[in-house]
């Protein structure tokens, strides 16, 4: 990879991590559009339990409690996983000459 792309990559990841770190402090805790509509149209549907237990439910690390810092860490972990997966998918799937 050339240095121009490396620089783009590093700046891009830093921006994503900054957004991730700030998200729990800045995000609205109001329900999202679908949840809000469900509250009005079919509130019983919100009682249904998910089919699996996720390790970081609601973008929090359970052992760190429900604090914004716990949220920041969870979302940064997510950013890194998504970045690694997308980059790997790109390498595996790219055009070959």
């Amino acid at each position: 990879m050339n240095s121009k792309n490396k620089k783009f990559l590093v700046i891009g990841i830093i921006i994503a991590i900054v957004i991730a770190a700030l998200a729990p402090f800045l995000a609205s805790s109001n329900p999202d559009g679908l949840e809000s509509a469900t509250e009005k149209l079919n509130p019983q549907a919100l009682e249904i339990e998910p089919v699996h237990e996720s390790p970081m439910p609601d973008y929090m690390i359970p052992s760190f409690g429900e604090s914004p810092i716990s949220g920041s860490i969870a979302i940064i972990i997510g950013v890194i996983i998504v970045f690694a997966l997308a980059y790997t998918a790109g390498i595996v799937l790219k055009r070959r000459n």
Partner: protein
Amino acid sequence: MHIPDGFIPLWQCVIYYIVVIIVGYFAVKWAKENLDERKIPLLAVLAAGIFAIQAMNIPIPWGTSGHMVGAAIVAILLGSPFAGFLVLAIVLIIQGIAFGDGGLTTLGVNIFNMGIVGGFVGYYGFKGLKPLISKIPAVFVAAFLSLFISAILCVVELYFAGTFPLATGFYFMGLYHFVIGIVGEGLISTIVFIAINKIRPDLISSGAI
């Protein structure tokens, strides 16, 4: 717009999964024929950024909030709806498995709504609008439409699932996602487009310049 488990009967979930697998096959084919190695950093950075920004819900009126989907801007920048599909599939799989955002039975329908509908409406919306209203406004409107049309289709799916009534479903989902489409999807996609166009125009698909 992440549909949780239990909102859609399993047999209907299977249908969406099948559609996603078929589109996935064509997306892999697209990548193997067209995905330039130099575009991989853009693809990966967009995926990471979309995951982060989806965790930051923007408040809208009526005690509600929302966030961008992002498939449209990925599709526009990388020059294919399949790029939007691939990025959103990765984001949604991680959100569903690791964060419980969107169910696992409904992962197929969520990838269908946000990855496929979002990517195709965003890409073809941009392509069709660019000659009419110029580049930057076309990004804004196409991104807006990608989110709004996904939300409207979501109501139709939830109607067939027996979870939402049709008319009031359109009303509430349409109202909320009209606003989210403007401030979440349209505005942020436009900012991202202008920024990347300024710093690395060489990374943008030739169709979007």
